[in-house]
């Protein structure tokens, strides 16, 4: 096993942001069928250990590549960029974020909150998707811009998580 291979190489996928999720899932399953520890349950300790390492690696690779945000961060890492804890972001983006947060707070108090929330989530998801499309292009030629886009994705994903939490609260799970 070559631990120096990156996740894309391990799963036999081209090194680009736009991953075919169906293909990723197929590859992942085909490979797990070969290496999973259950295939080695009555074999030698060495084989069991190897199987465990491989299956762990595959799970990490799949987990990273199937999430657009994790995949984007990983691509930046491969290009030698480590994310900052407190990044500087364009003021207009931050203003937008504050507005969105306020919108979410208003929804909690509103009458038809579940419907409003559904609309809100749809909008946020659309924004995330457009940033992702943007990232897919910039990662090839403008790494500084790509890094900023990842921070924006992080912000919006956190916002979406808050929206989901609110939804759970409203649905009384």
């Amino acid at each position, binding site marked *: 096993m070559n631990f120096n291979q990156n996740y894309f190489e391990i799963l036999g996928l081209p090194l680009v942001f736009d991953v075919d999720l169906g293909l990723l899932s*197929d590859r992942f399953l085909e490979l797990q*069928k070969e290496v999973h*520890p259950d295939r080695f349950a*009555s074999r030698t300790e*060495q084989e069991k250990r190897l199987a465990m390492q491989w299956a762990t690696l595959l799970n*990490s690779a799949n987990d990273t590549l199937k999430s657009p945000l994790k995949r984007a961060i990983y691509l930046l890492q491969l290009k030698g960029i480590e994310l900052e804890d407190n990044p500087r972001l364009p003021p207009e983006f931050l203003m937008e974020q504050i507005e969105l947060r306020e919108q979410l707070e208003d929804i909690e108090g509103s009458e038809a909150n579940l419907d409003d929330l559904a609309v809100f989530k749809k909008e946020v998801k659309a924004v995330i998707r457009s940033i992702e499309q943007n990232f897919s292009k910039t990662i090839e030629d403008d790494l500084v811009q790509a890094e900023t886009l990842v921070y924006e994705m992080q912000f919006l994903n956190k916002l979406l998580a808050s929206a989901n939490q609110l939804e759970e609260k409203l649905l009384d799970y």
Partner: protein
Amino acid sequence: MALLQITEPGQAVDPHDRKRAAGIDLGTTNSLIASVRAGVAETLPDIHGRHLLPSVVRYTAEGPVVGSDALDQAALDPHNTIVSVKRLMGRGVEDVRSLGDQLPYRFAGDGGLARIETVAGVVSPVEVSAEILRSLVDRASETLAGDLDGVVITVPAYFDDAQRQATKDAAQLAGVNVLRLLNEPTAAAIAYGLDTGDEGVVAIFDLGGGTFDISLLRLRRGVFEVLATGGDSALGGDDFDHAIAEWLINESGYAGEVTPRQQRGLLMKARAAKEALTDSESVALSFNDSGLEIDIRLTRDTFNELIGPLVDTAIRACRRSVRDADVELSEIDNVVLVGGSTRVPLVVSKVADFFEAEPLNNIDPDKVVAVGAALQADILVGNKPDDEMLLLDVLPLSLGLETMGGLSEKVIARNTPIPIAKAQEFTTYKDGQTAMLIHVVQGERELVADCRSLARFELSGIPPMVAGAAKIEVTFRVDADGLLAVSARETSTGVEASVEVKPSYGLTDDEITAMLKSSFDHAAEDAAQRSLAEARVEAGRVIEALGNALAEDGEKLLPPQDIEMLQQAINKLQELVDGNDYNAINEGTEMLGRASEEFASLRMDAAVRKALAGRQIADLSSEMTDNEV
């Protein structure tokens, strides 16, 4: 729907090479063992024809008694008769006290692992479970005419690390080779042959006596992916009995204090009524004990009102899991019912309403888990080499570390596929801090106090630095059984500390060794015999595995001299196996394992390459069509 897995021609292993494997459902109230015989998985009865073994162990001066004979004496000898030991597995004395006063045992010691005083000395829940396992395994060895090569033991999906570890320890103590700990709901899905069916999402609704489990599994390309698990570890059919008993007391107008004996009597009546209402519309109840007197008819409608809120609690957990799994209700095409309490009609109808699908319940809900475990054991032991089925399980509860302010920082989120490894970096918070206490917890809540404490260990020898300068990387590794190992290192200096998470409430390796030894001390010769037998079995497994591997891939992957070298090493180990020195056999087994490491690695790489290559040709054509569109 394939209820029974029939072995197909060409798929079967030569009968002489068939391994003996069994699936064990180690239950709270009853336990079962099942095995695949002549292509059919079925539970194995004892000599009296009973399939269910009550999970009860009574300790006497003459030794332990397991099963019905122990259960019969439970009322007369409550201190020495251990029932429902599963609830004590991996639990501390404090946890057990919080389970209520319904446990009549005398707990030994203060703090730490729960241990029970009996006439035969102090016993731990692990030892009690080992007795139950031994009884089941003996039954199987007799029925199958030989020792078992391996077993699969099922555990509830919500079992935390401490509880899983305790279960594995019990198996070690009982001297059985555990192929895998399998989540009970997954076992149920296998029993229904859903792995051979169409692709789709399956829900497993498991309502037992004291616990409720809901799991969502996705099947694709012969692989079972556990998408989400949830449930309530304190919800079950026993609560239905309590609801009826309470109703009886209310209806009777009895104002006095209900004695434990009256309570027991009422619960027995309640249970009988509940079971009768599965087929009848109403049932007569009469009770008379020390002034508590009642004659009444309980209709199914009233019963449904009594238990409605309880069933709704279970349905809420289902909704939560559907959300966790990120699937639509319409995607769920099969719902499997497990556990005796799913015989209650209201449970069936509410489940059907919620999932908008008629639930599957044509396999005995008490046996379905053991049957599934047997099918999986048969595959894992190597009896069905061509079987494509694979299970990808998930971590049931999030794992985290305690951080400042008593908060839990999640390192691995629940429902992450296992095996998995994850590292997280932490830092010191004081200038010159040279040690760091690492507290590993499991659970979903934010406060450490609300999570389960798994282990505490200290990373010391950190060089003095200003606060925040040290970088401490803590790595969590979870294996395919869901068991955790944690290690920590300071990355600038490489100072290391690691622990097998032998949890706050587990047995240490030394304790297990001591228990194993003490059980042999009675017969030192037996001990040597057993060690020799075990060494031979393990050596035999390695010889066979390597021999098969060489026959398959040796010439493809190795130069002739390496094949020759491995062949000689095999022959040498075979010579040792024919001798009587178990130490020498164990050493030889290890040597052969090490010698074959490179070969094992080459084979794995080849398998991976082949899997990718096979796919790529198919993908190429699909990509081309994609491009045209």
